[in-house]
């Protein structure tokens, strides 16, 4: 099977080359046989990449340490589940995994459009073939997962214990599923540009792909934050590191696209902009890969440096030049069909939303690339730290939050004064109530107060929208609350799923603002000694050391310290943190010692305990953090993903198949009128 897999990689390479060649040729010459052949070759590419992947998994599960990849990232005593995830633990496997998802997406996209979008499909298939070819070439010629060692080691080097965590097992594939998802809309954009079919039609074909990409990027980013928080022991979840930023950049442009696409559908505006966002999202994922894999930017997460960076840089430049040329020669076809009529309209709110999202994207990119730019201009590498990102993206983020509340409240085209007064009264009041309450409770931090004011406003908006929709259904169809609510969401998944996503965003902003109130203490305690601390809510905590214990477990030596915790005199249980030294079968240490933090989780705050070291057998040095509202970050992430799922869920299948995607719009319009929103 391993040999079959190795061979399949090369066959897949040839297939991808064939796909792109005949698809483009078929499209240009209008030869249907070539187009068909190209599509079949796309399926074949996927099939062979799948075989190549099964081959690598076989090698991992059978512990074939003659493969460098298997020997580098696994060992004979690694738990089975991590043998499966070791697939993407290294660069070579990651590339193969990337190619696997990419060709799978491509095969699905080609199959789904086998009867639609016929004119542009040859170019879409061809572009997808080129992207697949690129990944397969980097593997075949530079980072081959099937590279063999010239001797067979008795055991592998094992997997880094910090990666033996469910969050890290799932984080990379989620991100890849998101990254690769941008390739499909990109291919459609190329197809639409080449054939000059630039109306809303091609957007319909890519909207769901953009959603898929957004959905997985969101989950991937949040999982990465969670992993960093529980595993790395620095009590934070986001550090504006280059690697984190490069996953955030495409998320921003895809989010912008998912909003601006609505304007093109409804009003025929923003045609150039939508093409640009789609192209940009894909290019940013390639740029992100280049940044993280080439080592040009210093990052704590830096991956193995290799020539792979050059491959990505070359691909990035070629793709940028090509698409820039395509767009510039087709500007006439991208002329808007309508103009902005009023500043007080939903279009304007969406435009500002896009502006802010792209602004955040640009600022983040600028900060990330600053060392390269400054070296090029001034000859010195100058870096900017988290304060840069926070002070730029903080205000922009709040503006975005405000727009999240404003957008749904104002009508398309031109909002009347009555419309504004009727729509804004309740949400604005909600924001003010939150604001005043918090001041009365003694909160004084300006950033946090503004965040909660806006959060209250947006939350009010969302509630108002749901209440209106539900009561309209109750009046019209005489339904009771629960079925009315379910049908409302079910019939307008895009709209109400979107609001659920917005709700998740609000929750996250609230959680971010909570970190303004974090506190921490350090202490060195003998057994029986205690330390007192007061958290941001004014509770008094007492931590009493129960002493240090050392234990020997199967694959590690553990030094643990436990504390008896009380809050305002109430027992809160035991909290412990460990230092672990992983060992191999001979008892020799492997990897650096790792710290296992102890977290006392609650809705109000996390108490985050780090065992920094043992001074002697009795005395432990510790660091305790009180992190308010961290749980809500994860909860917000779950809500966002759930909302995304609702939006993505196929709706009115039959209607869609008959008359294409557009069928959805009139239906939504009817419902909108029913609930009294001016359309």
């Amino acid at each position: 099977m391993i040999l079959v897999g190795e061979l399949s990689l090369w066959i897949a390479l040839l297939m991808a080359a064939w796909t792109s060649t005949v698809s483009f040729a078929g499209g240009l010459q209008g030869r249907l046989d070539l187009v068909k052949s190209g599509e079949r070759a796309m399926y074949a590419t996927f099939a062979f990449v799948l075989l190549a992947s099964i081959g690598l998994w076989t090698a991992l599960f059978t512990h074939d340490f003659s493969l460098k990849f298997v020997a580098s990232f696994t060992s004979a005593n690694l738990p089975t589940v991590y043998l499966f995830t070791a697939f993407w633990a290294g660069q070579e496997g990651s590339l193969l995994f990337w190619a696997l998802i990419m060709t799978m997406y491509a095969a699905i996209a080609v199959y789904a459009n086998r009867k639609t979008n016929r004119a542009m499909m040859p170019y879409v298939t061809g572009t997808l073939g080129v992207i697949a070819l690129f990944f397969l070439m980097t593997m075949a010629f530079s980072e081959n997962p099937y590279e063999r060692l010239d001797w067979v080691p008795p055991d592998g080097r094992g997997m880094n214990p910090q990666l033996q965590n469910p969050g890290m097992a799932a984080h990379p594939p989620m991100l890849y599923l998101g990254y690769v998802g941008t390739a499909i809309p990109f291919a459609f954009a190329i197809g639409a540009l080449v054939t000059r079919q630039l109306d809303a039609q091609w957007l319909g074909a890519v909207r769901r792909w953009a959603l898929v990409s957004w959905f997985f990027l969101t989950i991937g980013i949040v999982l990465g934050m969670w992993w960093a928080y529980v595993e790395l022991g620095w009590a934070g979840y986001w550090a504006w590191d280059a690697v984190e930023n490069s996953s955030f950049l495409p998320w921003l442009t895809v989010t912008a696209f998912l909003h601006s696409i609505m304007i093109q559908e409804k009003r025929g505006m923003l045609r150039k902009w939508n093409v640009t966002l789609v192209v940009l999202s894909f290019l940013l994922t390639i740029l992100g890969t280049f940044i993280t894999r080439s080592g040009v930017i210093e990052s704590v997460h830096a991956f193995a440096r290799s020539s792979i960076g050059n491959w990505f840089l070359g691909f990035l430049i070629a793709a940028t030049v090509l698409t820039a040329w395509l767009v510039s020669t087709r500007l006439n076809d991208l002329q808007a069909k309508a103009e902005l009529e009023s500043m007080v309209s939903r279009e304007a709110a969406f435009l500002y939303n896009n502006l802010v999202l792209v602004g955040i994207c640009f600022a983040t990119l600028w900060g990330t690339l600053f060392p390269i730019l400054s070296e090029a201009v001034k000859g010195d590498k100058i870096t900017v730290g988290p304060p840069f990102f926070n002070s730029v993206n903080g205000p922009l983020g709040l503006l975005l939050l405000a727009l999240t509340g404003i957008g749904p409240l104002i009508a398309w085209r031109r909002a009347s004064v009555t419309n504004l007064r009727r729509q804004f009264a309740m949400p604005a009041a909600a924001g003010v109530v939150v604001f005043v309450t918090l001041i009365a409770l003694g909160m004084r931090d300006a950033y946090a107060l503004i965040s909660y004011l806006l959060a209250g406003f947006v939350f009010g908006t969302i509630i108002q929208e749901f209440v209106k929709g539900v009561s309209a259904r109750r009046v019209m169809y005489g339904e009771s609350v629960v079925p009315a609510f379910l049908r409302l969401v079910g019939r307008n998944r895009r709209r109400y799923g979107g609001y659920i996503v917005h709700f998740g965003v609000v929750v996250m902003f609230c959680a971010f603002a909570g970190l303004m109130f974090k506190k921490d203490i350090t202490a060195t305690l003998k057994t029986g000694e205690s330390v007192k601390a007061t958290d941001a809510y004014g509770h008094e905590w007492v931590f009493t050391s129960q002493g240090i214990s050392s234990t020997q477990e199967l694959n590690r030596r553990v030094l643990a310290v436990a504390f008896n915790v009380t809050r305002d005199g109430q027992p809160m249980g035991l909290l412990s943190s460990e230092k672990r030294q992983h060992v191999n079968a001979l008892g020799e240490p492997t990897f650096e010692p790792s710290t296992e933090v102890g977290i006392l989780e609650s809705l109000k705050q996390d108490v985050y305990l780090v065992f920094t070291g043992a001074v002697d057998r009795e005395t432990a040095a510790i660091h305790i953090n009180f992190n308010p509202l961290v749980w809500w970050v994860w909860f917000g992430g779950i809500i966002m993903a759930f909302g995304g799922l609702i939006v993505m869920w196929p709706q009115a299948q039959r209607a869609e198949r008959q008359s294409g995607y557009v069928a959805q719009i009139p239906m939504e319009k009817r419902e909108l009128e029913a609930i009294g929103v001016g359309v």
Partner: protein
Amino acid sequence: MKARNKFLLGGVLVLGTASYLMASSIDETATYYLTPVELAAKVADNPRFVKNGVKVGARVVSGTIKRDPGGREVSFMMTDGKQTYPVHYRGVAPDTFTDGVDIVVEGRLDGNGVFQATTLLAKCASRYENAPGQPGQYPGAPGGGEHPANVPKA
């Protein structure tokens, strides 16, 4: 005024604010990123340079790490092969900090030529790989990645 122009005006306002924020905070947070030999050159050039906080990327000299028992202070030597500086860091070193790893420290040189670090980041060559900087070390292979002399090649 046409709506389009109004929008553009608003857009310029937003972007202008963003650019202002970017420009002002870059001045506040920009830090030189140097290697030890570059730092030495800068200081030789202008002795007042030590007043600047800088980031230095270097490698930990094996065997020089001295940790205080509570794990809250650590001293070691860092080098880029050409220039070596002693480093003193007050804080909890990350788990990945060990002999021979690449590190990034932020701080400044004191009067005695000791780099007083306020942050210490350590990284693996790849965050997935064991034994950074020593390619090819597998269990059962004394002498590292070289092909063992007494084992015939396959």
